């Protein structure tokens, strides 16, 4: 199936959300450290993966102060930004190779999900990936979803007639569930997005997504500001209303984990013709 409106919206929203949080909240920390070998059955023997103790890395060069991965040992590797790891591709590397580097790690991982809120909050088990370094540091396993994290999903979409000629006002509800290991960070996220009402972001097709299937950057570099401005001739999406709320303390006590939970409900609006 070719890309549809909601695919473009999802892609654009996720990129905007990530950028907005990193920019407004400076929600990242620069780290220098060791990458630890972690096996990955999905990779063949010519790839040797080394994971940092954190995921996800910041990819966006338009975020002031964020150090994009640099000083990585070795000259033949790719960076799996989503899983916070370096995958060495040369034959000189073994599982005992020492890999170090500097990178910026997001305070909150961002995931797009189809899971229900009850699965996200009650059923799922997470590894808490604290952003505070510990003495028993080790690489974090790839592919697992770890918290602090924000899970995005599209909930509903409706069209309302807007103008003669068939133009519609399309309204899409996007929900975000934020899971945090401390209330300060959760309050920060809710505050930032509570203020995002009336922001606009441009439709970026899925082909414009900066990452490839390995989690590396397609073009070696990515700036949200540059990418977004390349599509600024299109009608923007408007963040019409935003409602934030937290899981009450009473309800939180019944959770098996010790996470702080917040909800951000976005109403996104755009004027468009159907099937465009």
């Amino acid at each position, binding site marked *: 199936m070719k890309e549809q409106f909601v695919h473009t919206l999802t892609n654009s929203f996720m990129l905007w959300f990530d950028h907005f949080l990193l920019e407004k909240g400076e929600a990242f920390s620069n780290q220098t450290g060791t990458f630890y070998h972690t096996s990955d059955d999905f990779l063949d023997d010519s790839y040797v993966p080394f994971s940092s103790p954190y995921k996800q890395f910041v990819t966006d060069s338009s975020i002031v102060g964020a150090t994009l991965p640099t000083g990585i040992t070795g000259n033949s590797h790719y960076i799996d930004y989503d899983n916070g790891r370096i995958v060495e591709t040369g034959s000189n590397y073994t599982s005992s190779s020492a890999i170090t580097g500097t990178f910026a790690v997001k305070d909150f991982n961002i995931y797009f999900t189809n899971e229900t809120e*009850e699965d996200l909050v009650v059923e799922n088990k997470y590894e808490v990936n604290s952003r505070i370094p510990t003495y028993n540091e080790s690489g974090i396993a790839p592919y697992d979803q770890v918290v602090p994290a924000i899970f995005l999903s599209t909930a509903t979409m409706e069209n309302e007639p807007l103008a003669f000629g068939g133009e519609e006002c399309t309204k899409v509800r996007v929900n975000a569930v934020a899971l945090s290991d401390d209330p300060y960070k959760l309050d920060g996220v809710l505050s930032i997005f509570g203020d995002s009402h009336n922001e606009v972001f441009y439709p970026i097709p899925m082909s414009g997504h900066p990452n490839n299937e390995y989690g590396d950057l397609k073009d070696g570099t990515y700036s949200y500001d540059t990418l977004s401005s390349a599509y600024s001739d299109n009608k923007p999406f408007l963040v019409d209303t935003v409602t934030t709320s937290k899981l009450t303390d009473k309800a939180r006590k019944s959770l098996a984990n010790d996470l702080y939970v917040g909800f951000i409900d976005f109403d996104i609006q755009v004027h468009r013709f159907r099937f465009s």
Partner: protein
Amino acid sequence: MARLPRDVQMAIEKQAPKALKKPFEKEFKKKFLEVKSEMIKEFLSHPVTIELIAGPSSSNISGTLGGISNLFAFIGFDASDQPIQPILQMLENMNYNYAGEAKIGVTYNVTIPEASDIFKATPLPWASGRSWAQGIETGISGLGYLLRKERGRSGKAVQSKTRIRSGRFQNTQYISALINKYKKRFNNIK
């Protein structure tokens, strides 16, 4: 038909509002109370309202959960909660006031709550920034049910072994449709 002279017309237009204010108000009040009463009656007879008033022992008469469990438990209310009360209070507080003279008549302003006002007054028991009344229209997750189950609060629905998931919830028209309908009815009072 003979037309009234202009000065007579002007005299009527000037004197009528004052002279007719009382009979007009009596008539308007009667019609206003009729429409208000109809609105409250319609709200109270909505299947969602009936189900929530019935509390944790109700069956899913609204059909929003495919007949499994009931809304009261699904949303996560405590047995002692009265979720309908704030809405009913807002509807009962609807009133009108004299707004001024019109051409051979008077105008009244009717204060009717907006759907957004009602949403603000109906927080979910587990996330106060979200409205359960809005959730009835746009979708509501089964998180309240699961959290309540984990805590083992009192109430019959806690005993249910059936897994309730948000995917089971069927949105339905509720507050917004009611407000829109009766806004028109109040506007049409003549």
